[in-house]
């Protein structure tokens, strides 16, 4: 399964399992629309990915029942599809938060990055 072609490097491997939870976390306070999510993720350099790949990810989250969508009128421009966190999405995020700390600590200990 390991493919080291363009776009499938180390950074993108690390993003693979975590980016969707970053998206869930961005939706924790309030619903957001696609362009807004892309901007937020783009602002975090380590998470930066081409914006287009966000949509397959959102589609996946929607099919998992972790996010729901609704259309809202915009003061300027076309109506926007807003993504919001469902109850299942919220508990998936909480589960990830717990797992992540354990995971991060274990990797830090073994790789030797505890005090960085």
């Amino acid at each position: 399964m390991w493919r080291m072609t363009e776009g499938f490097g180390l950074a993108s491997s690390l993003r693979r399992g975590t980016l969707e939870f970053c998206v869930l976390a961005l939706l924790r306070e309030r619903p957001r629309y696609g362009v807004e999510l892309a901007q937020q993720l783009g602002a975090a350099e380590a998470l930066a990915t081409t914006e287009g790949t966000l949509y397959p990810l959102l589609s996946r989250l929607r099919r998992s029942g972790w996010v729901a969508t609704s259309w809202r009128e915009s003061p300027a421009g076309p109506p926007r599809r807003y993504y919001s966190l469902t109850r299942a999405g919220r508990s998936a995020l909480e589960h990830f938060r717990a797992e992540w700390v354990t995971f991060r600590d274990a990797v830090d200990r073994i790789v030797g990055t505890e005090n960085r």
Partner: protein
Amino acid sequence: MTGSSLDRMVDDWLARVAQEAADLPGDRRAELVADLREHIAVARADLVVETEAGVRTILERLGDPATIAAEARYGGGSTTRPEPPAPQLPVAAAPATTPAAQPDRRGRASVWITVAIAVVAVVCFGCVVAGLAAYGVFGVREVVGEAPEPVNVPIEVPSPTPASVTPGADR
């Protein structure tokens, strides 16, 4: 560049995405293209002045259609499609045999289900008949003429039972 030629630029880009995602199920491909079209429309509305450079930047930030399609392909994993269909198997033979084999297998399964239901039904019917016969129903009683007595006995038995239970409950 006019608005309509910018539209054409966007349409061309979306057509490339659709082409790269040709192997995805139709509804997933349509959803992907619709999501991207919407993103572009929203981002274009945010441009202060709509220029060719502005629209081009929006498309560049979205990225390479092939990369987006690859992500969508990977995306099947989490819920519906665990893996894309095995690519190395004889490609020409597989589609020819699979559709024919599946209905056949399904047909055979339904025959077995029908047989199983029939067997269960026959057994149940047999049990009911045996049960009724054992209780002397089914016309046997009328013919014999003696049967009513054993039937009446169990009906009379329960009536004293509540009377004897009630004082016990008071204690």
